[in-house]
């Protein structure tokens, strides 16, 4: 009996949402990458053909993942984690460079991007460590250890010049916060981001002025006054950080990244110069916004997007795939994609909250958070809401490693979830 209704315990909603995205994503890759007539949907030389093969192979992968015993993932999480780290380190020796990032293994015509798999591995490791009975996340000692678990892969990826994928590891903050990380981190984190943006946008002096008002306002409103040194030290730290941010922006950042931030925050005062900059440095963004805009309410229709057909948006089948949705499916289609993403993430988070085992919960939470960061950065970037950061849209962007990485990430959780009523 246990055998027969086993697979009915899988969360079919998650699986359905997952395939909706992958399927619709493939249609858009087809539109964005085809040139001329489509002869073979499984063509090895066309992006759409390869992606369809990747999707079919991912089904095999899913069956494999779901047939492995759930306990395996917890028991072998450390092994998986270290294997993953090893694959990242190996890149320094055997890696292949594409677009300036050394993130690929060349497997005889096929390329594999280990950073796509490292996310799931890290999620497993974090889940394992946090769920350990001896771990108390409120203790600084343990916080440091978790921090190290997260930072090692992130740092390795950063060394390979893949800044976008590094940022994804910020997702674990949500996980740790959920598991009891003190609030102070959230506060400090938010303050730092606010301070950095403020320093860039308004300059150090105005930033310090605003900080002083906030800090002293807080100090004097408190009934129990501590030493007067406290606000002074806080301000000094804020001043140092502001300077550091400015210094980084002015001198340390490579030009292309600096320009992205300049455009994002409209830091260039001269409107004409900014426009010029947008045309040059943010060509992608300009074209991507134009393509989305051109869609209107209903879009131009599948395979009818003139900007898509004309390949006006570079990298449209990978990071900019959402522009195809925008142009060809319009507001209605784009909204639907946003909605399905939100539903998938919320579903996973909801399921995570239902887990009895802390391991499963932390892992599920990590899956939701990682998906969320990808969703946030990719679509936000394509629509010009955040600076340009190269990161794929899960299940939509072309790429086998990416698709399989997310397949593994999500379906390990589907497996864990199906096992939640069983005793461990």
């Amino acid at each position, binding site marked *: 009996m246990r055998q027969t209704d086993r697979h009915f315990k899988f969360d079919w909603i998650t699986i359905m949402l997952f395939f909706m995205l992958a399927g619709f994503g493939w249609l858009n890759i087809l539109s964005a990458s085809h040139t001329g007539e489509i002869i073979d949907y499984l063509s090895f030389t066309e992006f759409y053909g390869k992606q369809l093969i990747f999707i079919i192979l991912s089904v095999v992968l899913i069956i494999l993942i779901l047939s492995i015993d759930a306990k395996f993932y917890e028991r072998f999480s450390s092994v998986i984690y270290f294997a993953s780290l090893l694959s990242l380190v190996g890149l320094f020796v055997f890696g292949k460079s594409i677009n300036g990032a050394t993130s690929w293994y060349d497997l005889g015509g096929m390329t594999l991007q280990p950073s796509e798999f490292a996310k799931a591995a890290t999620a497993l490791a974090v889940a394992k460590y946090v769920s350990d009975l001896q771990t108390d996340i409120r203790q600084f000692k343990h916080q440091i250890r978790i921090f190290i678990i997260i930072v090692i892969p992130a740092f390795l990826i950063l060394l390979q010049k893949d800044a976008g994928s590094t940022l994804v590891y910020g997702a674990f903050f949500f996980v740790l916060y959920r598991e009891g990380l003190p609030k102070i981190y959230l506060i400090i984190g938010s303050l730092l981001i606010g301070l950095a943006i403020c320093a860039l946008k308004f300059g150090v002096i105005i930033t310090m002025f605003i900080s002083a008002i906030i800090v002293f306002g807080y100090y004097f409103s408190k009934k129990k006054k501590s030493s007067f040194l406290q606000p002074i030290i806080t301000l000094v730290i804020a001043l140092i950080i502001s300077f550091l941010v400015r210094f980084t922006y002015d001198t340390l950042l490579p030009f292309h990244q600096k320009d992205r931030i300049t455009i994002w925050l409209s830091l260039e005062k001269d409107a004409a110069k900014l426009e010029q900059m947008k045309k040059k440095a943010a060509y992608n963004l300009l074209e991507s916004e134009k393509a989305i805009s*051109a869609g209107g309410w209903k879009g131009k229709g599948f395979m009818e997007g*003139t900007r898509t*057909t*004309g*390949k*006006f948006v570079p990298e449209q089948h990978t990071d900019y795939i959402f522009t195809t949705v*925008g142009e060809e499916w319009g*507001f209605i289609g784009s909204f639907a994609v946003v909605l399905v993403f939100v539903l998938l*993430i919320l579903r996973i988070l909801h399921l995570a909250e239902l887990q009895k085992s802390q391991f499963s919960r932390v892992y599920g939470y990590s899956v*939701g958070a990682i998906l969320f960061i990808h969703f946030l950065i990719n679509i936000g970037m394509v629509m010009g809401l955040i600076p340009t950061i190269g990161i794929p849209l899960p299940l939509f962007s072309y790429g086998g490693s990416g698709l399989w990485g997310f397949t593994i990430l999500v379906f390990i959780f589907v497996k864990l979830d199906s096992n939640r009523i069983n005793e461990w």
Partner: protein
Amino acid sequence: MRQFLLFLSVILVGIIFTVRLFYLQVYNSDADSILNDNAIRKVYDYPKRGFVYDRNGKLLVANQPSYDVMVIPREVEPLDTLEFCRLLKIDKERFDKQLKKAKHYSWRLPSPFVSHLSKEDYAILQEKMRKFTGFHIQKRSLRQYETTIGANVLGDIGEVNNKDIKNDPYYKMGDLMGKQGVEKSYDSILRGRKGIKFIQKDRFNRNIGPYKEGKLDTIPEQGKDIKITIDSELQAYGEWLMQNKRGGIIAIEPSTGEILAMIAAPTYNPNDLVGRKRSKNYTKLYNDSIAKPLFNRSLQGVYSPGSPFKLMNALIALQENVVTTNEKIACKNGYNYGNRHMGCHCGSGLRDMSLGIQKSCNAYFATVYRRILDKPKNAREGIQLWSNHAKSFGLGNFLNNDLAVGQKGRIPDKAYYKRAYPERFYSTYTISNAIGQGEVLTTPIQLANMIAAIANRGFYYTPHIVKAIEGETLPENFTKPKYTTIDKKHFEPVIDGMLQVYKKGTANSLQIEGLDICGKTGTVENFMKIDSVKTQLTDHSIFVAFAPKDNPKIALAVFVENGYFGSRFAGKIASLMIEKYVNKTITRKDLEKWLLTHSLENEYAKPYSGEPFQINRGSQYQVIPMEDVIDLPKETNIKL
């Protein structure tokens, strides 16, 4: 509470994205119509522009192929520059300049390198073209004038400007449209409708293929041919006679309102405004602010009508019954009113209407004009009555015709004089109108139309230039007679007076045997400001006429600037024009020769000489030898 942070973040981001999408795609959308979509290249297919024929079916304007050498900079390979420059007849400097210009425009798109090659150059170049990779020849269509006459009638085509595009979105940058003459007024018929091909392009601006397999493409609609009312032989003859003179001639067929000839002098060869030399020549013509060759004097020249306007006053007087044809009015070397005097050259004596017209007696018409104005209870009502009659002949307003340019002229009315004389107004105030010298202003075409109405005994057809349009009927405006307010019976005495002008009067030297011509001379004082001093110049010479007296075939107005008295230049020209059109042959070769060898250029130079000068009686003829006379323009069939 902790578990809500991520939940809420996800929902919040979802909402922000939706709002942003709404802003980009709905609120601020440039959801492009295909015409504005810059991912789609629009390639226009230009139809053949319609031909223009004269009233006898003679081809006046056709098309000619023109060849432009185009360059795509990035495809250019090292070449024998010397040979290439020699073939194109340009120097190395120009070669470098053009290539730089093309590169500046685009590396990938063709831009013109040398425009409008001659056919001969093209023939030679074509065979060697394969040696010059990156260059190719693009065929275009230009106008081909089969004649050297009628520049002011036919007009020309030129590239549209921003204003044209704004007025009519049909035009796109680089399109050609009629700029003057018939090309302008019948542009939409002659041009046809261009076809459009939609081509998908990529971000490098290269063509990928037809958009939607060409489903939205349209094919061009050929331009229609038109036949104009001009008699090209008469037109050529008139232009020939008008050489070395300034002024205008309008000849109308009274029974249809068709314009037989429309001459503006000085003129130019219409071929000067075709192709490569257009902009250079146009600037030259445009900048000639003294002779004003682009100014169509027969349509735009606003002059005092002078004595021909007396015919109008005679008609109004008869209609208003203030004079009979037999009543004799005394001329005492002029007309005295109040303490003022208006001179007259008719030689004094008793004048009835016929004699008044024949001798162009100022006193007779001053008397008659005052009677008209004084007929109603006051002169203000009188002037309105007079004005209404005059306006019924199409004077004082645009004729609502199919010509590209025009002027209203002026027939003053009650309101006009209310502004000029708000307090008191008597008939004597405007006595100059009696002889066409006061506030009355007309253009030659209006005057010709007035004569046509007299020739028709009371009605006219709106003068027009189009005779037939391929596959279309003419608008009613040109085919329906417009009646004047003068009864038919009043015309005969006036026409009789005009006949006497030829038989015995001011034009008796210009008779044509066997043809009854009715005419009227005019001599118009005119002034010019020289160094801000109002200076009188030699009078304008005017003549109006129609012939034959019964079943008239032609009515015309001739205007020669500073030609002195009416029969001296204008009368002679009118007489020859009539002979040419009605009899088809010229018997009075001496008269013709006199006109051709007598130039007014010395007269026109006077105001700019900076020296004091004599006018009218004191001016001398400038005689030019017959060798310097330009030959009668013939059909040219020049192939450029």
